[in-house]
């Protein structure tokens, strides 16, 4: 078991390095650089050259990458090109906000999705099952910013239950954070529940077709016990994979929701950094996202293997 985890971690590190190379060089391929992106319409040859000289942007590309890499392995990610402050100082509060929202949404969405999926599987074919499926398809088909606007319109602008702007900052106390982040959290929950719920349902139904389940029924066990104690553990592998994918999305893909609710997270920071070609910030954000993705995937793999005794003790 340990050997497996160690192997996966080593592969993960290699993937991380490859990701950094890819991010750096594709950002360099984009037209313009930090100087021209910051100045926009106001750029002249003189002021662009001045910014480039100040920030060492006129050095060759590969040298700039190796400079960055040698700092990164020591934990120094350099300074943001825009504010000249260390990248880690800039990212920390936004990272905290993003993780807060992601965990908040995950704690609500995952149990809800698994519960609904299992119930739908138990009551397959019933009105409840059909209703849940239609609801899931609806929320998946509607783009998340539109869901966000709908929630904002009804709950914030019209009924004034929640604030329109989820502007949290470092000094916001915990319960206020829960209140401010409620609307973006609900939007995210609506977006990811559908996928996880349908996968749970499909996986459980597939396992329910096995002969040993029929045996469990013949033994006289109640339906809920059959599903939860006998079917679910064997259905876990695909469910865990889908959950991991959606959790990764919660960290990485929520820039639209952040923008609609003005929630200061990493998504908006990354978009701003890319459009202004603020390469140190892009690299640092990119690495963090890669770590999250790779980490969650490793976790999903390990859990899948652990839940299947045949894989746990290979002969």
């Amino acid at each position, binding site marked *: 078991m340990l050997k497996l985890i160690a192997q996966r971690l080593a592969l993960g590190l290699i993937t991380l390095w490859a990701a950094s190379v890819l991010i750096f060089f594709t950002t360099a391929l*984009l*037209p*313009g650089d930090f*100087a*021209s*992106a*910051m*100045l*926009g*319409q*106001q*750029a*002249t*040859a*003189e*002021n*662009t050259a*001045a*910014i480039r*000289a*100040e920030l060492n942007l006129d050095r060759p590309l590969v040298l700039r990458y190796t400079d960055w890499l040698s700092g990164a392995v020591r934990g120094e990610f350099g300074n*943001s*090109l*825009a*504010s000249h*402050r260390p990248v880690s100082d*800039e990212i920390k509060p936004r990272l905290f906000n993003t993780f807060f929202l992601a965990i908040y949404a995950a704690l609500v969405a995952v149990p809800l999705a698994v519960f609904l999926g299992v119930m739908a599987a138990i009551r397959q074919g019933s009105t409840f099952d059909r209703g849940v499926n239609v609801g899931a398809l609806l929320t998946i088909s509607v783009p998340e910013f539109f869901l966000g*606007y709908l929630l*904002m*319109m009804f709950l*914030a*602008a019209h009924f*004034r239950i929640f*604030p*329109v*702007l989820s*502007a949290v*900052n470092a000094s916001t106390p915990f319960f206020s954070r829960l209140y401010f982040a409620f609307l973006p959290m609900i939007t995210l929950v609506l977006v990811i529940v559908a996928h996880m719920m349908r996968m749970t349902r499909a996986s459980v139904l597939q396992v329910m077709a096995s002969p040993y389940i029929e045996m469990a029924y013949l033994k006289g066990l109640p339906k809920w016990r059959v599903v939860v104690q006998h079917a679910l553990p064997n259905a876990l592998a695909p469910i865990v994979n889908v959950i991991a994918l959606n959790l990764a999305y919660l960290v990485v893909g929520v820039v639209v929701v952040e*923008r*609609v*609710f*003005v929630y*200061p997270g990493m998504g*908006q*920071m990354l978009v*701003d*950094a890319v*459009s*202004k070609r*603020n390469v140190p*910030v892009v690299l640092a954000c990119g690495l963090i996202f890669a770590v999250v993705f790779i980490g969650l995937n490793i976790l999903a793999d390990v859990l899948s293997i652990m839940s299947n005794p045949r894989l746990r003790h290979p002969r």
Partner: protein
Amino acid sequence: MNRWEELQQAALTGRLTRRQFMARAAALGVSTSLASGVLAKAGYADDAPKQGGTLNIGIAGGSTTDSLDPTTYTDSMAFNVAFAIMNQLIETDPNNKQIPSLFKSWEASAGATKWVFKVQDGVTFHNGKTLDAEDIVYSVNLHRGKDSKSGAASGLKPIADIKASDKLEVTMTLSEGDADFIYPLSDYHVLVVPKDFKDWSHPIGTGAYTFGSYDPGVSANVKRYKDHWNKDRGHVDEVNFTCINDTAARMNAIVAGQVDIIHRVDTATIDLIKAVPTLALVMAHGGYHAIYAARCDMDPFKDPNLRKAVKYGIDREQLLKALFNGYGALGNDSPIPPSDPYFNKDLEQTKYDPDKAKFYLKKVTGTTKIVLSASDAAFNGAVDAALLFQANEKAAGLDFEVKKEPADGFWDNVWLKAPFCESYWGGRPAATQMFTTAYKSDAAWNETGYKVEAFDKLLAEAKKTVAEDKRAPMIKELQKMVHEDGGAIIPAFKDWVDATATKVKGYKPHSMFDLCNGRAAEKVWIDEA
């Protein structure tokens, strides 16, 4: 804007007396109760400003890459926060006239090449230091020289020498005469800081508010400075800026009462604001315009007949409605707006005339293949506008292709390089400034490639001339030249549209820029009554 809205705006800018307003409102058929309601909203009773309160401003145009370093400003949030903390040398008033700020008075001599400025006395910085001429020389020099990355640098290039000629006096010598030289000095980048100051994460200035906190692209907070030199500015105790780039979120924020002021109101959903009785709209005619820049020095627009053909083939009223929902003025292919004091009223408004367009098209000798590079980076709705433009021109016999360019990298790769592309200008306080920035032969931003010697000569002449009766006809002639022969196709000017809560008083429209030209924080006061 309809007549009733225009009347309300006239009241807000103080162009009417109370009696005139009520009389004209009655003539329009507006009930007296509604009219008095408007007078109350406009703060027409104009009492003395009240001190105290906290102001919340919802502001767009912020990014996590912003900084409070004056050489880096390109968009609204940064300079609005900076204006609360720092002062300019010279400000622009709501009618585009220059008024003193830290420069008390100025005098030009020797053909407008030598300028002597007197500095306000008794001004202190937030750290207690007294303002003197050395601080001003340092602050201006941040934007000069080939190492400067400031957007104001090209406007200040004419300064050959600047020195502190006395403790409270600054002398500038220009390389060539310019009667409008005070306009570049009022550029929004040029702010005054103490000598040798560099700590831009904690800026110190002479402004009405001291720095509290700043999270780029997210929020900012400033607190009132008790020893501010200008007693007419700085009435509220604290100002909170919240960055709201998303238009729908910004509109909702003021409707829900979470902020007291917003700018860049979405004219398509403006009824949301009109429906709330505790909100008021503030509109100003300004110089912001959308432009289709045809390069006169490249094919196919080298041929002036083709330029004329395209100018007659565009339906300006339709574009004004589509782009700005009618909130603006028609453009006449000259970058000087109707609100400018030197606006040439005698120029005939070019109308949509497909027959005239066909006539000029026949005279074209070279190629008529046109490709318009369009992108939403130029202005909101630019790609849709390009398609409308294409449909207009088709009826006039001009078939051109619209090439959609990615917004990212538009200013790098397309603008100034493509033969025909979209662009925008925020407007300049002085007509000569607008022409120098974008229409002079050697201007860095000459997006229409307009290189006419007679134009350059006349522009230089107009800048040197101080006498009003001599320069006005020159500036009018410059507009005529661009209107007839230039490559600038300007269909419409946009109005600035802001929204405020009715408890915010003293908020006057400003034709230069929204949010009272960036100084709303220090100009308004809160009166709950």
